[in-house]
């Protein structure tokens, strides 16, 4: 069963890595943002799967932190995207 | 190849990539980003020492890990200070560059 969990994690990492090609290609910043979101979800899934297979302690808290931070990063990028209007310092 | 050796090699590659970016990118914020890459590479190399030093009944050596944690926070503090200086420089001079040639031309540099 552990082998299966690891294999699933591997497939997800691979899939998401291919999705990162979207970051490279763009063409818009929005697409890059979406690729990072996909990476966030996939990374958390792979983290949980690996952690349950290798029994590293305390990884559920790391997963919680990553889930928070993925949302935080997405919010910061959106803040950049739609706040460019009316910005003057 | 054990995971720790692999991670150490990744760290070495990151230091190289960051160094290249630090020298070749003209944008100061990009330089800062590259510098952070160097930093995390160094942390990774440092961290595998932690993984290898599995002594005293730990799965890892907690001393380097604790130092990496403080190091990450200090690196962030330094980055924030650098950002403040870059912004101030740009506001004072209207130039977003660290290139010394840009400063030899006549123009107000700083206040």
């Amino acid at each position, binding site marked *: 069963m552990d*082998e299966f969990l690891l294999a699933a994690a*591997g497939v997800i990492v691979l899939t998401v890595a291919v999705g990162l090609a979207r970051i490279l290609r763009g063409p818009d*910043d929005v697409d*890059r943002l979406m690729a*990072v979101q996909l990476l966030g979800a996939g*990374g958390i899934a792979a983290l949980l799967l690996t952690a349950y297979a290798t029994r590293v*302690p*305390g990884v559920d*808290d*790391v997963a919680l932190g*990553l889930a928070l*931070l*993925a949302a*935080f*990063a997405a*919010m910061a*990028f*959106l*803040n*950049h995207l*739609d*706040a460019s209007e*009316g910005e003057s*310092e | 190849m054990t995971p720790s050796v692999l*991670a150490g*090699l*990744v*760290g*070495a*590659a990151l230091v*190289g*990539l960051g*160094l290249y970016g630090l*020298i*070749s990118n*003209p944008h100061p914020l990009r330089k800062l*980003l590259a510098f*952070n*890459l160097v930093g995390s590479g160094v942390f990774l190399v440092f*961290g595998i020492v932690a993984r290898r*030093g599995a002594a*005293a009944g730990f799965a*890892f050596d907690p*001393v380097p*890990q*604790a130092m990496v*944690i*403080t190091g990450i*926070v*200090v*690196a962030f*503090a330094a*980055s*924030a200070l650098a*950002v*403040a200086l870059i*912004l*101030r420089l740009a506001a004072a001079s209207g*130039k*977003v560059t660290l290139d010394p040639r840009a400063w030899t031309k006549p123009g107000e540099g700083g206040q």
Partner: protein
Amino acid sequence: MSVLAALDLGLALLVVGVAAWTVSARNLFAAVVGYVAYGLLLALVWVRLYAPDVALTEAAVGGGVTGVLLVTAGKRLDALASAEIGAPPGRGLKIFAGALAALVAGALAWVVLTLPSTPPSLAPAAAEAASGPGAGLGNPITAVLISYRSFDTMLEKVVLILAVLGVWSVGADAAWGRAPAPLRKPEPDGAMILLAQVLAPVGLLIGLHIFWVGADAPGGAFQGGALLAAMGMVAMMARLMAPPRIDSRKLRLALVAGPAVFLVVGVAGLMLAGHLFAYPQNFAKPLILFIEAFMVVSIAVALPMLVSGPPDGGAK
């Protein structure tokens, strides 16, 4: 364990690939997006190295907060009207930089491959610290941070305060004492406000939980504090909260609380337990949690202030 080895290799390639993208991306925003993705991936690598504490700190501070710092800085830089960017370097410099980088990376890789097989380690000493003065701490990282290397940790907090002072002092003279510019100027969208209203309280709870379990499990003051800082910035980005004035007494008290309490307890240890930063045997664990609680406050306040930048406004 060949599946695991393949997973490790894939992850390693991915990290290096995203780092390369960060260096070579055409614009700043794309590079920062790459950098945040890189921070998330690096956290996975740290988990594989059995360092969940480092993974959390790296993801929170290295990836998330640094990413926001750079995005905000890029936006402010764009707003400075006549900003001109220096010319890209010539081919000669690029070749030189590439050669230098390859040399350094190669040398480091050689060092990594030829490390002695039984490395010298401070782990026994740290184990002693974990079972001695830091008695009852199940998480050796916390024991090292607060007990074995307590002086480092205290000074590291001082560095954080110095950085905040440095950032503040870069502001214009006339702006001294005012609040930093908000992370966002226009009114945010309803969806963003909702997201912040859900995220911030849940994140607060998770941050406190990670701080609290830090004595015995992965987690602790740095990790919890960094998450709380991120949630503070979430509230600032949705304009639920404005950056405070930098002459606010509360703000300054919160900034110095961590190192001050640490120092006071440390000096008290000199009198009660014999040497600086020694904790009396029976009170070690509650004392350490007490110090950590104030450090969480200091970190959670210092990081958003560092991102917010110098005070804004005043006469032109």
